[in-house]
């Protein structure tokens, strides 16, 4: 090492040490000088925050839905292969999509270098079902059976074109993570009917696909953290460490928790940090869940014909079918918001086989859930939502070959369906153009959908607000209209 280099390194070392000493020393000095807020100040700040941000407790008006089961289909299910029948795509297969249709729609980076955008006919056949005569593809025969119980919305559109921001946008109303998701808003606003289970439970099914999903989608954001979604695991034990270790009985656990709670309360008196209260709440909830969860997860009391209804995967923990029956059992226990995530709808290539696989895992359980809720009288006040973060392009991603093709992300038009909870049943709402590329009638923006969902739960989305860091926030951000035509 030459002299110059050596000097250079020594300088770096000195810089580092000096910086460290000054930095740490500064922190210590700040603490010694009492730069932190005083207890009384913290208490006052906390009190002001509590006065501004009060949970609703009671809905603004009489709700139609008391709980929600949201079957989120991550990846972007293709509207053209499922619910939005477009005969024009068959006749124009292979032809360029007209420029007038593409318009100003965003296209993703994955097709931006494509010189040709040939239209691709749906890898599906369609038939009319139900009294309203809505079209359903042959990939979803079971959902087609419940056509009279659901409302298909074919005119959804979003602002995001990539998975993560689009999922976060759908769940939180904003494309950047950090805001509370729908389940957290409802947990915070309406609280829980059941004392022994979390008000917001999330289940991510395994075996769907390799598209990742971020836990920011069930984050409580700036709301107290005990309102975040409690994720059930996909294995045999949905809630880990539920059983007491050997030699520890329930009373020991209770005593330990009481002792810890005492410490937490002392700290809370000093710091007035809502996160301490969240910690206390979560510990208590975990204790109660020790008793409540086994009765939820034990499917041995389900009659065989009910299990059969959900399909062959129902007894395999972590599958979508298993999660669907779990969702029903949780709804029976009045859990406010159950969110299922099924991934595997991101069909950039080989959509024919991809959609077949995705629907084979989800079609039967989704329909079974609706039927099961209905026969138990639960669908009346349970809103079921089935949908993803965006749709897919009517043109092929990459070359359109006889062997197959894929479709890219498309935010301009996609389909979802809803059932129960005060939504009109047996209805198809909205209309897209001949290419399922643009919405031409009854547009439903993500914020409109969120506003409508809130409305069904008795909440005026414009009045349900939380002030954080100087700004008032709501799920629908600064927009959103309730779609009254969707409400029964």
């Amino acid at each position: 090492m030459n002299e110059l280099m050596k000097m250079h390194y020594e300088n770096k070392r000195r810089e580092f040490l000096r910086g460290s000493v000054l930095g740490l020393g500064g922190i210590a000095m700040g603490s010694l000088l009492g730069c932190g807020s005083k207890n009384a100040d913290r208490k006052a700040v906390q009190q002001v925050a509590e006065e501004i941000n009060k949970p609703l407790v009671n809905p603004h008006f009489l709700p139609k839905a008391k709980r929600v089961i949201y079957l989120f289909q991550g990846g972007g299910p293709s509207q053209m292969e499922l619910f939005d029948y477009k005969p024009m795509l068959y006749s124009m297969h292979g032809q360029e999509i007209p420029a007038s249709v593409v318009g100003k729609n965003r296209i993703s980076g994955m097709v931006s270098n494509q010189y040709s955008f040939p239209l691709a006919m749906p890898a599906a056949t369609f038939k009319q079902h139900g009294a309203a005569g809505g079209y359903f593809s042959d990939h979803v025969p079971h959902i087609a059976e419940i056509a009279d119980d659901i409302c298909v919305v074919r005119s959804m559109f979003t602002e995001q074109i990539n998975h993560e921001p689009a999922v976060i946008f759908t769940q939180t109303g904003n494309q950047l993570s950090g805001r509370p998701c729908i389940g957290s808003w409802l947990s915070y606003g309406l609280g829980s009917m059941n004392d022994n289970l979390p008000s917001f439970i999330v289940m991510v099914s395994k075996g769907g696909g390799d598209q990742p999903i971020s836990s920011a989608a069930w984050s409580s954001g700036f709301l107290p953290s005990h309102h975040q979604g409690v994720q059930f695991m996909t294995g045999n034990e949905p809630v880990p460490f539920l059983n007491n270790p050997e030699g520890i009985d329930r009373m020991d656990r209770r005593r330990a928790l009481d002792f810890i709670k005492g410490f937490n309360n002392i700290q809370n008196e000093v710091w007035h940090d809502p996160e301490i209260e969240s910690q206390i709440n979560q510990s208590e909830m975990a204790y109660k869940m020790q008793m409540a969860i086994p009765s939820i997860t034990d499917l041995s009391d389900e009659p065989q014909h009910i299990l059969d209804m959900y399909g062959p995967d129902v007894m395999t923990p972590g599958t979508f079918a298993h999660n669907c029956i779990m969702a029903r059992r949780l709804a029976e226990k009045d859990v406010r918001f159950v969110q299922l995530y099924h991934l595997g709808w991101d069909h950039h290539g080989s959509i024919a086989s991809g959609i077949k696989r995705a629907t084979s895992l989800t079609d039967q359980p989704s329909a079974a859930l609706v039927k099961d809720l209905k026969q138990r009288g639960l669908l009346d006040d349970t809103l079921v939502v089935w949908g993803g973060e965006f749709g897919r392009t009517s043109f092929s991603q990459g070359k359109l070959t006889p062997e197959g093709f894929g479709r890219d992300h498309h935010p301009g038009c996609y389909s979802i369906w809803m059932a129960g909870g005060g939504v009109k049943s047996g209805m198809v709402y909205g209309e897209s153009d001949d290419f399922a590329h643009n919405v031409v009638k009854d547009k439903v923006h993500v914020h409109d959908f969120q506003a409508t969902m809130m409305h069904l739960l008795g909440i005026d989305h414009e009045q349900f607000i939380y002030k954080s860091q100087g700004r008032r926030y709501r799920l629908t951000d600064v927009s959103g209209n309730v779609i009254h035509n969707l409400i029964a």
Partner: protein
Amino acid sequence: MIINFLGHLHPVFVHLPIGFLALAYVIQYFFKSSTEKSRLIDFVLVAGILSSLLAAFFGWMLSLSGGYEENLLDWHRYTAIAVCVVSIALLAFKKYKKEEYSKPYYHGGFHLMMLALLLAGYFGGEMTHGEGYLLEASTDLVSKGKAVGQHQRMPKPTASSTTSDHDDITEPSGPAALDAIAPADAASIAALKKINVAVVPLATGTHFLELNMVNVPSFGDKDVPLLLKIAPQVMWLVLADTKITDAGLATLKSCANITRLNLKNTAITNASIPLIGQFNKLEYLNIVGTKIDDAGLLGLIPSTTLKKIFCWQSGITNNGVISFRKKYPNIVIDFGEKK
């Protein structure tokens, strides 16, 4: 803090310019011309200008605290500024163009100031009392003078104080349209909560309740007396998966406002059918998993409000459902999947 405080002074000062400037207008057009009149107008205009500047400043501070409809706020802000500008211009015109102050410009300015004043006041009122406050009152005045002020609201706290061009507030809908009812007996509510019954008001501004026994599977006939005192307030009653029997349910006949009754998986039998028929506001009946059979179902004389019955896994058979449907085609009866 200081901005907040200054903002709160706006309502104190805002009525002064209204008074002064309106007084100037009255003096100008309803008093006989004289030197005193001119001096009096000068004085009142100066007072009006000073107080309007103060009110505008405090108003600006108040707007910084947020919470107002941005659209209305903008209109209020700009019309209020117009009041200040026009009144200052008017005074300047009067003082420095003395020989011309009886010209049309002068009178036009006076009318403009008054118009701006009225508009600023109107938008201020809309912000404080809710959109359509004045118009609603005028409509009501025309149509036999209904009570005004139903729309009265606090400043609307929209997120980030941005525009809201629609109004999604919906009147409570549904059964009995949430008629007025007295508050429920607090001691009874406390007693029910003590045994973990979820007692939930159905909506803001109503005393009707949902009682849900989801946390009390042991709830039985012995516990029923706890809710007798609040029976009129009970609108949704969830007794699913509890130990309630016909005897316990029989004592609930005073629950005259029940619209949703969930008896799923209880030991209820046909004996309760006459009582269920007496709930004359009932819309939803869940008897899934009960012992009620065809005889019970066909013996039910449902209220005219009843819309849905769920009877899966009860003693009811397909034949019973078919007969019931013939009798009451407007009631949806769900028999569920075949066993």
